[in-house]
């Protein structure tokens, strides 16, 4: 430590810079003497007049609030930006203006104090971005990291925090395809890397603890496909920021788990307010309904079509089975969509947090409660309660630091086990029998299938509770060298129970029905220990940031699946001791262990050139004994080639320029545990063992190589920020559940594939401050992504089971379909081309390739502010195709309702119709289903959706001070308010047969005491 003196000098300069740049709460950490040594009469307690001018980049600012800290005394600047105030020498003045950083300045005997206010916007480049094990300034980052903060997250009435990312980030696809609360959204960061469906989850890290991102298994038919989101129990109002790491430079430090990107969630911390305690309270409530319904045939139209079909087939009504024509009321009409999912759901959300602290310790305690109904008939709802604690402490000498956070959440989701419910709403004949009898009980008479509401009598309860606790201890051994240990513990327990009530069945069978339940319980327990050593040093212009650490992680998952029968009474259902018979259908216990050594070396020269080297050696228990370890690394660099910020008139047009690039490898071990074990499990029947999978001891790590180049530009004092990214990720050695024909005994085996998948694309992101005047500001952010997914190589694909699923040179998300050939002018039925003319229609004829992925997508966010009034709205746009709506219906003329398109069917030769002839024949059915899997089977499902609108009003501070409230706002917020799309089905994203996303409108109030 030879250059100790020089170092100290630099430290002072740094501190000085920090004093001006960092928001005020931190300012108070530094003893006054450091910054303002020159003040002569520091301690004189006398009253004096102080005056000054408050300015920003554009000149004097009127209406700035000037307050003596800790009192109610204050004033506003006049039209010339001047203020006059009587103060004590020891007072601290607080200057505040909406959209600008508060500034706190001590009087220190001065009589004039001119203040330059800094807009929150210019700070963008200075924001510290969380990169996981370390953090970097936005300006200096070498990796691709996107970020949303509480400001964007809070105004959304959502359950899963991930929904907040929808439309806000380039390269991040989030789909909440189904309008059922609590289901896991699909999230893809820079496309689909793995051929394995369940191998594309990003890594979730909450306050440093990795969280299993696999959705929770759930047996219900509404929940089975997507599963339950493990992040549901995390209160999104308690999230400070979500960072998404995308490129190699940012993700390689997560090594084998970084291939699909990393999502870092940081919860809110307590703010040190010099002994003051503040209370935040927010409350909102609102209503939701499904955002769309489709146009279906009414009774008259439907019956006419049925009669015509029977006539076309040369039959009479008596020849065929047609209860709608023979048995049911010919005039009855039920709007089944309205009946089955047309309800209005209400929601209420309350959030509270207390925070405060003194110079060394700060805290934040919070809690929330949320209740939300459903759009389905009867009482189904979602309830969530959360609590969180955040404690930060540092020792007097600033060497020891402790951060502790704990988040606990309990949720209860009550839905029902109704397979086919939506399909029912779309295809039940409009004159089907009434649902209820006069006495209010379900009507079963004359239904040819089960009464559609019967499924409501098999309610499903999903409960989860989740504890996430994290403690980070750090100690500065010597200046610049810190030892840090990160300890994490997470426990997620989830229970799922379906009750089969007697009312679910036809009363004629009630005497045979045994009350039963299907129950499952999932427990996920994990701990992590990550000792780390960090070293920071400067040599002249060279700065260095180094980090080395290791990870020990243990995850234990258990899953128990039980069915029980023979309950004497409805109210006992679920209590296994009251069941006559309990059967264990599955009892899985898995353990996953993961160990790693990782490091990072960051270098920078004069704040202009940055180099970042990261590496990780990983071991995972998911691989066979000889294949457990692998190395990953990445190199990133950045060059700030222009950085010119002017003051006032002296503003250059081009203010910032940065080039950035990275290359590296990451991997994925998202495969089931124990796939390498040749093992047997117990059968349901007594005393038996059976093999449950094919085993392969030889599979090993899949490798994802990521390359990225990026250009960042800032104009007019960074009022316009533009970022252009190009990326290319290549995944090789793909780990898949290799689909096998069932003749091998099973449908798949865990294996590495000789396949190379490339995800490349362009991402454009702009942030602009369009207007910024004293009272009005308007900011816009736009992001657009052009993804390109391609299967580059696949050795001998013709000799594998993938031959009919993938094509080299095409995206993974394709369908291989028949060539559509219009409607046969003779028969009036759909035709597809028999390419090899062998008289059969099979995979050899399905040669047309349809891309089912997104062509491009983007988001447009706007934030307008006029005095205390603020309006935020976000549009999401996706260009894609989806399954053609008409093919979701039974073939035209058969039993079951269809879309209004069926009114224009082929009638006679020469017709130019789009819908084939009305007929019930098996030939018609076959033709219809072939056309559905033809090039005609998809339609344009591009859409523009007004995803989120929030209008809020901050009450003027002057008013609030009278009632001792420091801030208060009221707001109206809406989700999925409007969707513009040519798509004919229920939802362009969810498709033709899932509950469309809910349209939600809420009103609320937010208070800060």
């Amino acid at each position: 430590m030879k250059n100790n003196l020089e170092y100290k000098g630099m430290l002072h300069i740094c501190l000085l810079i920090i004093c001006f740049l960092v928001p005020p709460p931190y300012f108070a950490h530094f003893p006054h003497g450091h910054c303002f040594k020159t003040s002569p009469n520091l301690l004189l307690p006398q009253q004096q007049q102080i005056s000054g001018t408050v300015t920003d980049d554009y000149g004097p600012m009127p209406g700035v609030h000037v307050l003596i800290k800790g009192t109610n005394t204050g004033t506003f600047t006049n039209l010339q930006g001047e203020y006059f105030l009587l103060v004590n020498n020891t007072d601290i003045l607080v200057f505040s203006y909406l959209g600008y950083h508060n500034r706190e300045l001590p009087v220190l005997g001065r009589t004039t104090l001119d203040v330059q206010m800094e807009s929150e916007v210019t700070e963008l480049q200075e924001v510290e971005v969380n990169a996981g094990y370390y953090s970097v300034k936005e300006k200096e980052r070498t990796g691709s990291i996107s970020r949303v903060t509480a400001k964007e997250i809070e105004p959304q009435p959502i359950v899963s925090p991930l929904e907040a990312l929808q439309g806000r980030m380039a390269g991040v696809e989030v789909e909440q395809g189904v309008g059922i609360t609590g289901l896991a959204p699909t999230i893809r960061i820079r496309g689909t890397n793995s051929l394995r469906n369940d191998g594309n989850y990003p890594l979730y890290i909450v306050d440093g603890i990795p969280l299993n991102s696999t959705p929770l298994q759930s047996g219900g038919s509404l929940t089975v496909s997507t599963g339950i989101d493990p992040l549901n129990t995390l209160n999104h109002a308690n999230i400070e920021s979500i960072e998404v790491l995308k490129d190699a430079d940012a993700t390689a430090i997560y090594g084998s788990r970084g291939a699909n990107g990393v999502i870092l969630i940081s919860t809110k911390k307590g703010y040190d307010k010099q002994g003051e305690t503040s209370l935040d309270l927010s409350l909102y409530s609102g209503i939701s309904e499904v955002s769309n319904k489709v146009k279906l045939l009414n009774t008259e139209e439907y019956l006419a079509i049925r009669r015509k079909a029977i006539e076309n087939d040369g039959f009479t009504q008596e020849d065929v089975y047609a209860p709608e024509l023979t048995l049911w009321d010919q005039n009855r009409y039920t709007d089944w969509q309205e009946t089955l999912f047309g309800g209005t759901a209400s929601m209420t959300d309350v959030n509270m947090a207390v925070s405060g602290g003194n110079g060394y310790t700060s805290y934040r305690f919070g809690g929330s409660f949320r209740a939300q109904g459903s759009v389905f008939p009867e009482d189904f709802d979602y309830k969530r309660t959360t609590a969180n604690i955040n404690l930060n402490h540092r020792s007097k000498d600033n060497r020891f630091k402790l951060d502790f956070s704990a988040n606990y959440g309990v949720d209860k989701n009550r839905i029902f086990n109704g397979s086919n419910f939506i399909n029912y709403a779309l295809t039940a004949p409009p004159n089907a029998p009434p649902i209820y009898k006069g006495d209010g009980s379900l009507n079963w008479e004359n239904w040819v299938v089960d009464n559609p509401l019967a499924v409501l009598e098999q309610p499903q309860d999903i409960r989860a509770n989740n504890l996430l606790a994290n403690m980070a201890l750090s100690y500065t051994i010597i200046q610049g060298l810190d030892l840090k240990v990160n300890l994490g513990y997470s426990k997620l327990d989830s229970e799922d129970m379906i009750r089969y009530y007697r009312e679910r069945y036809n009363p004629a069978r009630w005497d045979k029905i045994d009350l039963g339940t299907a129950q499952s319980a999932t427990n996920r327990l994990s701990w992590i220990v990550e000792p780390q050593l960090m070293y920071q040093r400067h040599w002249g212009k060279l700065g260095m940031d180094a980090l080395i650490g290791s990870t020990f992680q243990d995850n234990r998952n258990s899953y128990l699946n039980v069915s029980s029968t023979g309950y004497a009474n409805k109210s006992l259902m679920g209590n296994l001791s009251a069941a006559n018979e309990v059967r264990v259908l599955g009892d899985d216990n898995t353990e996953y262990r993961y160990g790693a050594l990782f490091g990072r070396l960051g270098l920078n020269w004069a704040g202009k050139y940055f180099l970042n080297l990261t590496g990780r050696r990983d071991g995972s228990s998911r691989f066979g004994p000889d294949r457990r370890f692998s190395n990953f690394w990445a190199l990133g660099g950045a060059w700030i080639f222009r950085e010119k910020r002017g003051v006032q008139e002296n503003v250059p047009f081009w203010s910032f320029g940065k080039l950035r690039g990275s290359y590296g490898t990451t991997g994925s071990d998202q495969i089931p545990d124990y796939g390498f074990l040749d093992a047997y499990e117990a059968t349901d029947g007594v005393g038996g063992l059976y093999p449950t999978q094919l085993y392969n001891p030889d599979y090993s790590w899949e490798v994802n190589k990521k390359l990225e180049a990026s250009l960042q530009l800032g104009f007019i004092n960074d009022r316009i920020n533009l970022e252009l990214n190009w990326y290319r990720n290549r995944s090789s050695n793909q780990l898949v559940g290799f689909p096998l024909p069932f003749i091998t005994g099973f449908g798949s085996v865990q294996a590495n594939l000789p396949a190379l998948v490339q995800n490349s694309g362009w991402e454009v992101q702009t942030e602009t401050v369009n207007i910024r005047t004293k009272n009005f500001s308007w900011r816009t952010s736009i992001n657009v992504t052009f993804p390109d997914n391609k299967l580059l190589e696949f050795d001998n694909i013709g000799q594998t089971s993938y031959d009919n699923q993938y094509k080299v040179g095409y995206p993974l998300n394709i369908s291989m379909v028949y060539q559509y050939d219009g409607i046969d002018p003779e028969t009036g039925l759909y035709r597809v081309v028999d390419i090899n003319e062998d008289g059969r229609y099979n995979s050899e004829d399905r040669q047309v390739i349809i891309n089912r992925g997104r062509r491009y997508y983007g988001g447009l966010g706007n934030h307008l502010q006029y005095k205390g009034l603020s309006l935020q709205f976000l549009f999401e746009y996706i260009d894609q195709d989806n399954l053609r709506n008409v093919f979701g219906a039974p073939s035209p003329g058969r039993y079951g309702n269809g879309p209004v398109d069926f009114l224009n069917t082929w009638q006679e030769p020469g017709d130019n119709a789009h819908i084939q002839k009305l007929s019930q024949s098996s030939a018609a059915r076959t033709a219809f289903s072939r056309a559905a899997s033809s090039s005609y089977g998809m339609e344009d499902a591009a859409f523009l959706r007004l995803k989120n609108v929030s209008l809020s009003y901050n009450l003027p501070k002057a008013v609030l001070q009278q009632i001792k409230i420091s801030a208060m706002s009221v707001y109206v917020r809406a989700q999925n308010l409007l969707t513009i799309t040519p798509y004919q089905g229920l939802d362009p994203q969810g498709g033709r047969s899932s509950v469309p996303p809910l349209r939600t409108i809420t009103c609320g109030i937010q208070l800060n005491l």
Partner: protein
Amino acid sequence: MKNIWYTLLIGICFAQTSCEDFVEVDVPDNKIVSETVFGSDETANSAVTGIYNELFKADFSNGGLRSVSLLGGLSADEFWTTALNDELLEFGENEIMAENSYNLPLWSSAYNIIYMCNAVMDGLERYDGVSSTMKLRLLGETAFVRAFVYFYLVNLYGELPLILSPDYRTNALASRSDAQVIYESIISDLETAISNLGDSFLDGQRIRPNKYTALALLARVYLYRENWEKAEAASTQVIGNISNFDLLNNLDEVFLANSKEAIWQITPAGRSLSYTTNEGRILILTSPPPDSQKPVALTKDLIGSYADVDIRREHWIGKLDTEDEVYHYPFKYKVNSADEITEYSMVLRLAEQYLIRAEARAQLGKIPEAISDLDKIRIRANLGQLSVIAPGINRSALLDSIHLERRRELFTEWGHRWLDLKRTERASDVLGSIKTSWQPSDGLYPIPESEIDKNPNLEQNDGY
């Protein structure tokens, strides 16, 4: 200063070396590795018990909606579809799409059982913790089960991939072998079973095959191959084993667990809820159709084939009167739902052996002997003895009565009717006259489309 660095470096290196051990995990408590399974008689025996347990779960053999019994009955003229169910309708109309979602589990569950047999055979050879007597028996049992599954596969689908090892690497690309080759494998497996297995049932339960079980299936295989002598010989051995088997006079007791008529049964011990056999659960109609859980009823055609005096109609066929229609259903299994298991699902029974021998003998010209076998069944059904009514019956008329008797005796059991119509080449005559959509190529089900998609060497059957 330096010391700190060294300490830390050493610390981290230590952390790394301990990583190697850290990522070792134990085998979870719900799994047993093969080496352990085939390390003792007891666990190896459990692996075979597992196969019988899984036969009750496997779609093709569980008697449920996707079973040979139900789908075969629809394809022939035993069942009709009373509920809206396109998948079943396709079987009923013999217009099965290659994508039919009931066809795939029928096929895949059968091959899953074959995998289990192959895995046990492979495990017994690879590890040597099992005693030689146990090994012999287990090899015999798995050979029998494998032969049994292939018998159904070859009859339903024709040419097949012949999978005799558990190695998916080679199996994944297997192409179809001639039916002849499949039958040779079946016969060879059955001969292994006959030589390896003992004479008696284990623990008094008719769940695990013995030598006679294998002989009974062999008799049927020879009948299908029209090797009349061997069919007669094999069935004679089974019929002759009177200490084990007998025809029960009380028709209501035939399908009880371990009834003396049973040659092989599947136990519903692994059932879910309070049902016993799927045949009892699904086929017995308790409320007026349509009911998606109970989507089939017996055809008028079948009901019409019974003479008035035939007591099978009363004992084995149930009736549900509704306002518009009378529905008939199989009532061989009496228990629709119960807490206790009293019935097992019948796979092979003695009555069929008499009918096999009668047919083989008739083909061989041994008319009086054939009549006497057939009469055993007729007497029990309260029908007049042919030896009395028509002792001079000619061979072809006798064969016709045997086939009629097979229909009436074995209805809705394991697709007998469907397979009989096909092997005797009467399918087109019989089904063509009652089903408008019948085509001669409908005799074989389509290979499931997804299987062809996944295995480029698999060819589709004609007509699909």
